[in-house]
């Protein structure tokens, strides 16, 4: 959670670089203007979040998704962002997928190894425990049914 108010600011260096890249070469941006743009960006995030959240709530979802953010952009009349946003999301997803495939494969390999070793030891213990536990499990299930 945000503990200090500065936590809700975006990093000045990055904001300054984005402004520089957007403007023609050699434009001087005053310190006051930079600070104002940075604050405006934070307000933009909050406004977009609130709009997107309205769409999610209407659809009775608790998690904001990509569609909600895009719908929010339209609502805020920033349709001009839709195309570049969709393109960026495509690139991002491809990148994520590449990373995921590699790391998932690694994870699976690790799990297999760890699983095999652990199972050997556990199986014997579980066999003994299972018989004792079963009646308890049935009892719980019955209780649940009654409550419902």
């Amino acid at each position, binding site marked *: 959670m945000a503990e200090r108010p500065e*936590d809700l600011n975006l990093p000045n260096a990055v904001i300054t670089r*984005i402004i520089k890249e957007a403007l023609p070469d050699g434009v001087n941006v005053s310190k006051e*203007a930079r600070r*104002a743009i940075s604050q405006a960006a934070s307000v933009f995030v*909050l406004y977009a*979040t*609130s709009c997107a959240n309205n769409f999610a709530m209407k659809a009775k979802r608790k998690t*904001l998704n990509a569609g909600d953010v895009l719908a929010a952009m339209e609502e805020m009349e920033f349709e001009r962002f839709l195309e570049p946003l969709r393109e960026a999301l495509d690139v991002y997803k491809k990148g994520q997928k590449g990373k995921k495939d590699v790391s998932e494969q690694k994870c699976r390999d690790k799990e297999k190894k760890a699983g095999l070793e652990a199972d050997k030891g556990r199986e014997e213990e579980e066999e003994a425990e299972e018989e004792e536990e079963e009646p308890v499990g049935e009892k719980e299930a019955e209780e649940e049914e009654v409550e419902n």
Partner: protein
Amino acid sequence: MSQNNPDQEDQTSGAKKTISLPISRVRLIMKSSPDVSSINQDALFLTTKATELFVQHLALSSFNNGSGKETNSLSYSDLAKTAEETETFHFLTDILPKKILARDYLKSLEQMQEEEADF
């Protein structure tokens, strides 16, 4: 110009980085909104990217509509003017109030009082 070189290197080596603002910070801002319970990764990415587009758009429109075109500068008053005059930037008027001189403010206050007295 030579200052830009490290950044460009970063971008090419970092497997085509599509956003430069930190996603973690954007999530923190989004989560500071009380109604929001959870945000999926794509929504987070899109909001971050949209914020970058917004910064570019705000800076460029303020520069193009502003008074600093001849002097090659962007000032606070250019931003305040854009917030006031452009429909899509209206939500910024609270945090980008137009600055006026105390002298002008007192004058308009006096005028208002005179008008009230006329009734």
